[in-house]
Structure formats: C-alpha cells, structure tokens
C-alpha cells in the first residue's frame, strides 16, 4: 500500500488559516502512558498538527520546558487549547498566554458549559471567538453541530469549525451523524474538523466519508493498549475515509443485487425445471 497521505495533489491539500496541513489527523498530546509513547504515536501517525495546553507551574518544576522541547523537536504545527475554561474571560486570557508562550496565533477555543458533557457553552464561545479574532487570533472553535452557532462563529471571523462527534472522552463516535452530514452540506467551503468523541478507527473513517476535512482526537489513542499502533490505525482510517469520499461511495440499496452477473449462469434453465 503506498503512502496514502501523499495521494492528494497540492490543490486538494487541507489548508487551515493559510497553512497547508499534510495529515488530516490532528492529535491531542494528553494522557499517554509516557512521553516516549506519545512521541512514537506522533511519528507513527505522521501528524502535522498537535494540540497542547497551559497549566500552572511551580518555580523549580521545569516540566513545561521539557514537554515543550519535545514538541518542538517534532516539527509540527502547535494548536494550543483553552481546555477547562468555563467563561469567555478565562478563555481569552488563556489564549493570550498561549500565544506568547507557543508563539502562534492559532488557538483551539474551548469554553465549557458543564462537567457532565464538557460540551461547548455556545454563548461564551461566540463571545470569546469574537474578541480573539479582533485581537488577531486564528480561532479553531470547539463547537456543536448547531448550524446557527456555526454561522455566528463564521460571522465572528472564524475560518474553521470543530464540531464534536460525541462528548469528550466517551469514544462513542458520531452521536448524530445525520446532523453532522447536514452541517457539512450547510458549510460547503469551511474546513470542518470533527473534534471529540471519536473512539475507533471506523468512527474516523465515517467522519471523513461524510465529507469532514479532518479529525482531531486524543483519548482513543492515548488510552489504547498500544498507543503508537493505534495512532497508525487512525491515520490509515482517516486516509481511507478521505480517499473513499473522494472516490465516490456507492449508493446504498434496500434490495440485494448480484455482484456476479446472472447472464450465462450454468444450469439456469435446468434449475427452473427442478
């Protein structure tokens, strides 16, 4: 099998805020059993974008620096998140700190509504997105499949939308595939990235078959029995779904149809008479 990540010609390559992105699998960096396994996963999946976060650091800890050095060595795009923020204000300040420390205008904007579902607070999200775009950020909003919210995020200046598949960490796949398909059709020209809830390679393939541009995930790889192998599996699944989408999926049918042609079947007349 040749290298599927190379089969897209340049004009079909995904661009996010003007930057070409070779792999359509975006990877979270949390929860791995060890930094070594995380690094292996990044390499095995050949990812182009990883998400990172900010956390409080004690004076002599220096763990942030070690992590950062590792990430820098990968040579990937870094997408800092605002995970854990419960208000637009916190998310905005976190984004500002992230911009300084990671030296990037990209931010994965999370404004969380509640702990049960970790779903986006769509009001805080639009408010924060509006302000961050004003400040020059390139915002990747973690949102729902709500079309009206998507429209407001685009109106605020977002050029990418990241709807959830299912609640973060559940691994349930696409909870509402019909709504996600509708979203894809409603925003034909906006890069749409499924973020959260993807638990198995088949979920990632389905997302791509529906026409989504990329998949961002973390738990399903970090918590796999063998994270680097699972990273490779997801990379293949994303490529498979994308290639399948572009190759034109067959229409499903209600009734069976022979794959082997009926014409010329031996014993055809004899059978009739039996």
């Amino acid at each position, binding site marked *: 099998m040749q290298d599927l990540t190379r089969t897209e010609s340049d004009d079909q390559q995904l661009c996010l805020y003007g930057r070409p992105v070779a792999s359509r699998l975006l990877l979270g960096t949390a929860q791995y059993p060890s930094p070594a396994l995380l690094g292996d996963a990044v390499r095995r999946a050949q990812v182009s974008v990883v998400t990172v976060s*900010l956390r409080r650091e004690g004076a002599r800890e220096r763990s942030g620096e070690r992590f950062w050095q590792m990430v820098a060595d990968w040579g990937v795009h870094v997408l800092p998140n605002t995970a854990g923020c419960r208000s637009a204000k916190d998310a905005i300040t976190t984004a500002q700190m992230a911009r300084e420390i990671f030296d990037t205008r990209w931010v994965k904007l999370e404004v969380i509504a509640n702990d049960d579902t970790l779903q986006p607070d769509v009001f805080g999200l639009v408010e924060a997105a509006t302000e961050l775009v004003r400040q020059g950020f390139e915002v990747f909003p973690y949102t729902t499949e709500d079309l009206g919210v998507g429209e407001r995020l685009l109106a605020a200046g977002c050029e990418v939308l990241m709807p959830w598949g299912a609640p973060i960490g559940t691994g349930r796949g696409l909870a509402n595939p019909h709504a996600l398909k509708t979203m894809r059709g409603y925003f034909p020209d906006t890069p749409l990235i499924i973020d959260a809830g993807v638990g198995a390679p088949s979920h990632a393939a389905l997302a791509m078959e529906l026409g989504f541009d990329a998949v961002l995930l973390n738990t399903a790889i970090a918590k796999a029995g063998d994270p680097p192998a699972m990273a490779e599996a997801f990379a293949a699944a994303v490529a498979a779904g994308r290639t399948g989408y572009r190759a034109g999926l067959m229409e499903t049918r209600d009734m069976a149809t022979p794959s082997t042609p009926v014409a010329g079947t031996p014993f055809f007349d004899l059978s009739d008479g039996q």
Partner: protein
Amino acid sequence: MRVIVNGNEEQTEARTLDGLLRELGYGTAKVATALNGQFVPAAERSRVQLDTGAKIEIVSPRQGG
C-alpha cells in the same frame, strides 16, 4: 504582602510581577503570566505593580487534548 500565586497564598517582598517571579525562583523558565485575570505579557512584567491580595497565574506548556 500577601498575594495568591496559582491559587496558593504566598508572602512576598516583590512590588512587581517581574520581581515576584525572580523571588520565587522561576529564573528563565518558559512561563506566561496573568494578574487578576488579565494577561501580562513578559515585556510588561517589570512595569506591573502588585497590590495586597493580587491573584497571579504562572503557567507553562503541558499536554493537552
């Protein structure tokens, strides 16, 4: 003067955010800072005055999803 650093109370002699970081021993650590919920860029830490009860966040890169 009492301030709150990353959620914990601390006593400090420092009058600026810059001074506080030095006093606590952050040295050249790769950190970003906020004061009372507002981002403070590295270049402005020496110009920012601390008051009693100030809430300071000092953060660095971490794994994230």
